[in-house]
């Protein structure tokens, strides 16, 4: 039976993106009034874990670092079919950059027991650095495969997988235990179900704070973060519409010129 850890992040609902603003002073995101949802790509990570469970049998641990409000996201993953949940939650974890986040998550994973497979989303929809997965792998000293798009052969301990490249794919072999960050091409995440929600009643979410992890406080949260986000701005994404007129040939010529000018072809 495989031991799988899925790392999931609570992110502001992308549907509410118009409500998110940047605090001009602290350079942090203003998230009040915005509901938190499961990071979209983490659904693909969950789905991959569930498919492996169906295929080989697996024990799925769902792990998240975040405030207590992230608990429903973990519960949702348990309702999808995860077996146990851990929420790493402590004021001391606040203000973490990717390094401190990955360190905290890796400490959590060590305490849960080293898994055969760790699944992360390729990126979160808010921070979107794509670093947390690889950093966790580094802290745990295991191979990492980013941008997973297909598991070609998962029999045995040496997997064959395809990862996304801009113009194609890469075929890789990787020895387990390994960490994968997944893309949306990997699978179609399943929907929540009433019976899944009922089954999740019996599944526990354990909350761990800094004492539980037993790691030095200076490696956590803001003090443990070497990165400082010094500035953030919003960009105006205005689209313009231009109507081209004339005969069919004239319109085609004009369009061609415009596309060439724009560097599109």
């Amino acid at each position, binding site marked *: 039976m495989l031991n799988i850890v899925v790392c999931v992040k609570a992110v502001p609902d992308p549907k509410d993106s118009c409500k998110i603003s940047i605090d001009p002073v602290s350079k942090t995101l203003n998230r009040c009034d915005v509901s938190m949802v499961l990071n979209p790509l983490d659904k693909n990570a969950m789905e991959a874990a569930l498919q492996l469970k169906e295929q080989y049998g697996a024990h799925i641990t769902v792990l998240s670092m975040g405030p207590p409000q992230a608990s429903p996201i973990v519960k949702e993953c348990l309702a999808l079919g995860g077996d146990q949940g851990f929420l790493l939650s402590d004021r001391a974890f606040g203000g973490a950059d990717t390094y401190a986040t990955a360190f905290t998550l890796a400490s959590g994973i060590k305490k849960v027991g080293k898994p055969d497979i760790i699944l992360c989303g390729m990126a979160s929809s808010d921070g979107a650095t794509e670093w947390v997965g690889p950093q966790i792998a580094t802290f745990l000293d295991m191979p990492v495969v980013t941008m997973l798009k297909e598991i070609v052969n998962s029999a045995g301990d040496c997997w064959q997988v395809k990862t996304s490249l801009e113009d194609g794919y890469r075929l890789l072999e990787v020895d387990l235990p390994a960490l994968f960050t997944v893309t949306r091409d990997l699978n179609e995440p399943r*929907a929540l179900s009433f*019976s899944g929600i*009922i089954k999740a009643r019996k599944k526990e979410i354990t909350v761990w704070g800094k004492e539980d992890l037993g790691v030095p406080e200076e490696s956590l949260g803001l003090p443990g973060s070497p990165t400082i986000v010094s500035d953030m701005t919003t960009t105006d994404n205005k689209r313009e519409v231009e109507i081209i007129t004339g005969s069919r040939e004239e319109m085609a010529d004009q369009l061609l010129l415009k596309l060439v000018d724009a560097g599109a072809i």
Partner: protein
Amino acid sequence: MIDFTFTEEQEMFRKMAREFAENMVAPHVAKMEETGEVNDDVIRALAEAEMMALTIPEEYGGLGLGYTARMIAVEEISRISVATAMTLQVFGLGIEPILKFGNEEQKKRFLPGLANGDKLGTAAVTEPTGGSDPTGGRTVYRKDGDDYIVNGRKCFITNSHIADTITVLAKDENDPKAFCAFIIEKGMEGFKATHVEHKIGMRGCNTGELSFENCRVPKENLLGQEGKGLRVVMASIGEAGRGGMVGCALGVQAACLEASIKFATERILYGKPISRLQTIQNKLADMKIDLEAGRLLAYRAVSMHDKGEQSSNEFAVAKYFTTEAAQRAAKMAVDIHGGYGCMVEFPVTRYLRDSFVLGPSAGTSDIMKVIIARWTLT
């Protein structure tokens, strides 16, 4: 103290139902509107999402989640498609009499199939002689050995042509005060679904007529006691039936408000969005007040229902309020849209048509007032 918060689990039900409606129902709405016909894919999706199993106890193949969960599901589905919510709510109405009045054998025979969607349900009371007065119906039964022979006609029946098990109210041929509720099954000799209605709204929800010509019903299909059938159907309609309509109405209210907010913030007049105009804000506020009040009435009634308390009066208030409020909301939404509110590409036109179909089912607003007045006077 009263706790007005949904549990974490109920929030998850809502999320699930919302995603279901947006992903599995919304893509079919245009076709349902165009043809007016039930969509098989939607029915299958409802079954796969275990939507029919909500109120049925686990021992009969259901989920045992109760009526609040059902209200949440119906409300969320109605926000996307009132027709689908109505179809689902009446599946529940078809299940209810068997749940409440069926004997053990009947529950074992019918509920598992109704829970997994292999079988679809409905309840047929209304007749051409008038739905407000169910005792005035002309569908009759007579005994023939161990069987009953049913003759008559039912009209305006939701799921008429897709239902497999139908709770049918009939009157004793010789005693106008004695009624029986029968479970009539598709394929029984002498029973057929006849005319299909074309409605102005809730298109894609099947409504039609049923006919019984010397339809032989075995005594095993009698629900409750002989002669006490009126109670079987009225108790089911009074709570589960009205509750379902309330869920449908709340969904329309929410959809109208959402569409109005979107339009009002995007439509620019005098160099600014019309949401800055006080008159428009007034309408949005009215819709919001109605929605908040409607939800409180609805979830109060349904939490009583879940506790097993008598809740038909509370449901009458909620049904009156929410179905009337849905019509008000739809009119305001159409008004806010100006000329666009008359163009079929804009869903508010559908909400307006749908809102008018909410009224009669499970009793008109007049009848709700009759019930509510009776409540005040006793």
